[in-house]
C-alpha cells in the first residue's frame, strides 16, 4: 500500500475537495495522510518524511497557489524527497487563465503533474497508480 500525503497549501481553507480526495484515495487502496487545510510546505514535507510517502498531492483553490508553491520542489529535494512525486491541482492561479500556460509554469517549478480546475479525481488516481507502479 502506497502512502501519499494530501493537503491544502497556504492560507487556503477550501476543505471540501480535500475531504473527497481523501475518501477516494482510501477507497482506491492508498494509505492517505491528510494534513488538511492551511498547510505550509514544511507541513507537507514533514508529513512525507515521517510517513515515507511516495507522493505529495497539493491542493490549492484560493488563487495564491503560485506563490505558495514557490521553491517547493527545491525544498523537497533539500529534505531528501527528490524521489517523491509532486502533484498539484485545484484552482491554482488567480483567475481564468489558459491552462496550457499554467501547466507549463508549474511543471517548470518541478511539479510532475498539474491539474486544471474541477479535474476528475478518479482519473488522477489512474495516473498516480501509473506513476507509482505496484507497491
Amino acid at each position: 500500500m502506497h502512502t501519499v500525503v494530501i493537503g491544502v497549501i497556504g492560507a487556503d481553507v477550501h476543505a471540501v475537495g480535500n475531504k473527497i480526495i481523501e475518501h477516494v484515495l482510501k477507497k482506491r487502496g492508498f494509505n492517505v495522510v491528510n494534513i488538511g487545510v492551511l498547510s505550509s510546505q514544511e507541513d507537507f514535507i514533514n508529513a512525507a518524511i515521517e510517513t515515507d510517502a511516495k507522493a505529495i498531492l497539493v491542493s490549492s483553490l484560493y488563487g495564491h497557489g503560485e506563490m505558495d508553491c514557490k521553491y517547493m520542489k527545491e525544498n523537497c529535494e533539500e529534505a531528501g524527497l527528490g524521489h517523491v512525486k509532486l502533484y498539484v491541482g485545484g484552482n491554482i492561479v488567480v483567475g481564468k487563465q489558459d491552462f496550457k500556460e499554467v501547466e507549463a509554469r508549474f511543471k517548470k517549478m518541478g511539479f510532475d503533474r498539474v491539474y486544471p480546475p474541477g479535474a476528475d479525481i478518479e482519473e488522477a488516481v489512474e495516473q498516480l497508480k501509473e506513476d507509482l507502479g505496484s507497491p
Partner: protein
Amino acid sequence: MVKNKKVSREEFERIRRDVREQWPTGLSEDLEFERSIERLQSIPREKDFSKKLRVAKAEGLTLTQPRAGVALVDEHIELLNFLAKEGEADLLPTTIDSYTRQNRHSSAEDAIRQSEKQKRSLLNGFPAVNHGVEACKRVQDEVPVPVQARHGTPDARLLSEIIHAAGWTSNEGGGVSYNIPYAKNISLEDSIRYWQYVDRLVGIYAENGIEINREPFGPLTGTLVPPSITHTVAIIEAILAAEQGVKNITVGYGQCGNVVQDVAALRTLDSLTNYYLKLFGYEDVFVTTVFHQWMGGFPADEAKAMGIISLASAVAALGGATKMITKSPHESQGIPTKEANAEGLRASKIVTRLLKEQTFPKAKTLETEEELIKKEVHSLLYATLNIGKGDFAEGAVRAFEAGILDVPFAPSEMNRGLVLPARDDLGNIRIHEFGQLPFGDDIKTYHRQCLERRAKKEKREVSFQMTIDDIYAVSRGRLVGGEELPKGFDTP
C-alpha cells in the same frame, strides 16, 4: 469563558491599543474616534449601506452585490467603478485577500510588491490593512455606491478599525461564521471575542449616531449545509452583535437549490432573527436578509453558470431577500475578470427587477418547510443556550464542542464534522447522519423518510456516496446527484 456581555469601554480601549499595534497602518491618527466619527458622519446617504438597505426593504427590492478585490488601490477602484457602471451593482464589496484574512500582513506586503512588478494581481483580494486608512478612504470616495468589507477573517479587529475609520459603512463576518469555515485551529472563544470587539466598535459608532451595517456570513461552507444550521449560527451572531450595540444587521443564507426550501429559508431567516432578537430584549435592531447565489461547485460552462446565476436571482427576488451576492460565469475557473463579473451582475439585476413586484405564494409545502426549519432552529438554539447556561457566547463554544452545532465539510477542528447531509427526492437538503444534533425523533424521522424516498427512486442505499454525488451534481448540471436520464435526454 467568553460571555455574551457588552465589552466595557475601558476594556475595549485597552484591547484597542494592542490591536492598533498589529501593523503600522493601525497607528494612523484617522483611527481616533473624533476623526473617524466625523468622517463617517460625512458619508452621503447614497453611499451609506444601512440607509440603502432600509430603502430597499421598504420598496421590496432585492439589491445586487458582487465579490471583487485586487491587490492594488488604483486597480481596485477601477474595478469597483466598472462593476457599478457596467455591472449596475447596487452595492459593492471589497473582498479582502486570504493573507490578510489570516493576519499574515507581511505575506500580503510581499504580494503587493510582486503585483506591482508583474502588473497583475497576485492576491485574491484587497489587502486593506496594508494599504491603510488613506487608501481605503479613496475607495469609499471614488466609488459611487456603498462599499462593504467582505472577507473570512477570524481576527478582523484591525481590519475593521481601518475600514470604518475610512468611512466604509458595512462589514461582513462573525465569531462563528468567520471561524468554522475559514480557519483550522483558532478557538471559537478567541474568534468570538475578536468579533465582540468588532461589534463593540460598531456599537460605539452607533452611540454616536452612526448606523453601520453588520452581516454574519450566512452560507458557512456553502456545501450542503441545511438551512436550520446556518440560520442558527446567523441568529446567534445577530444576538452577539446586538449585545455589543449593533443596530443594523443583515443575516444571510446560501441557495440550496430546491426553490421551496430556499424561499422557506429566506422567510424564516427574517422572521426567526427578528423573533429571537426581540425575545432576548434587543428591540431596536433593523434586520435585512442576504441571499447568496449557489455557493457550491459551479459548472465550467459559462452559459450554464449564467443559468444558475439567474435562477438564483429569481429565488432571491421571489423569496424577498433584501440583497443578493452574485456569482460570475467564471466561478468554476477562478476570480472573474471585471467583464465576467459584470455579466453575472447584469443577469442578476434584470431578474430581480423583473420580479420586483412579485413574491412566492404561500402554499402548503412552503408552510411545511417553514415549520420544519423553525422547529429545528428552536431545537438548536434551545440546546445551545442550555449548554451555555443561558449565555449564547459560551453556548456557541460549548455547542460546537459537543456537536450540538455542527457544520458539514468545515475545515475547523472546533467543528465535530459528524453531520452528513444529502438531498432528498425533490432536491431539498436533508440530514442522513445527525451526529450530536439535538433534534427530536419526529424531525429525524422526517429527514430519513425524505431520503428514503430518494434512495428508493435511485434504487440504492442512503450513503456517503450519495453526499459526494450531490456535491458534484450542480457542476454537472443536475441538482440531485446520481440518477441517470434516459439516453438522448441528458447532456451529450
